[in-house]
């Protein structure tokens, strides 16, 4: 017997999940941006990036978890479409890169109280990767797999 995804039997499920997705990425990307801006010398300058990272890491993680789980549920509503959607694939490449970068290179760059010389480059790469995720997410809705773009 075919079991239908309960998400697809309610018209409200998808938009409500999208709202959680938005709050999730505002929280995660917003907190990461606070640290990145600090590496660039913008915004919170009285604290070191290391201090800010310690202040925000739990909120970043919480936002990421919220974004990821709402995203997985959104994906489950129409997996074939997402699989064929090149914007979605690009988004996933950016997302995996951004998360890996965040918990490796980025983490090392902000872990010492004196940011390394390449701190600004790390901040820019981090911000660009997360922007890539956002752009990919928006373009998903403008692409119709199997049809011409537009």
């Amino acid at each position, binding site marked *: 017997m075919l079991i239908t995804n309960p998400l697809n039997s309610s018209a409200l499920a998808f938009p409500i999940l999208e*709202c959680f997705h938005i*709050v999730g990425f*505002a929280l*995660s990307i917003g907190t990461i941006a606070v640290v990145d801006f600090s590496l660039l010398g*913008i915004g*919170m300058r009285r*604290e070191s990036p290391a201090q800010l990272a310690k202040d925000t890491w739990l909120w970043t993680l919480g936002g990421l978890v919220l974004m990821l789980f709402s995203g997985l549920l959104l994906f489950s509503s129409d997996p074939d479409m997402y699989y064929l959607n090149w914007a979605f694939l690009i988004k996933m490449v950016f997302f995996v890169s951004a998360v890996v970068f965040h918990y490796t290179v980025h983490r090392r760059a902000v872990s010492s109280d004196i940011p390394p010389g390449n701190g600004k480059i790390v901040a820019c790469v981090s911000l660009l990767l997360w922007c890539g995720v956002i752009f990919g997410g*928006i373009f998903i809705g403008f692409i119709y797999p199997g049809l011409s773009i537009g």
Partner: protein
Amino acid sequence: MLLSFAQWIQFTAFFTALRGSANIYPIVMSLHMVGIALFGGMILMTDLRLLGWAMRKRSIADVVEQLRVPKRWGLLLTVTCGILMAGSKAEEYYYNAFFRTKLILFALVIIQELVFYRSVYANPAALDSSPGIPANAKLAAALSLLLWTSIACCGRGIGYIEPPLDKIHAQLRFVNTAALVDARGPSLPKGWDY
């Protein structure tokens, strides 16, 4: 009057081009979301700090004062992109219940800011020197959280309503037909005669 303004603005050459572009429109929307991620995230952190839930090792003054300028830039980006999107579909947005709600919530957020400006936002150092976080600061933060998340959710909702403009036009019987012909070209709904 507001309606004819909406019709006029969306059929200006600029917004007609924006509406018809395959790539510029989604790019503007993406930048709107980038603004939400940056600005929205900073709003959340400020409010969570005022509530005493986040960044407790930092003083309230540090958070409020230092995030003020980046938040303004983020807001500018988000609002600019929002106006570009709303302008290109102004007539549709005029009828859109979520867009109307969003504008009302914006008015409320401005009132919230004005009401709490002196006691909370203008002098955050005073909040640090009080024994606990004052109740009105927490109230301001809770209202801000509620209003801004509602604004974001209403924004998402806009895309789910498509006001039946053709039916509305048919009922109104008076629309700027010249502009409609100009913008819609050969794809005009059936049953139209000028």
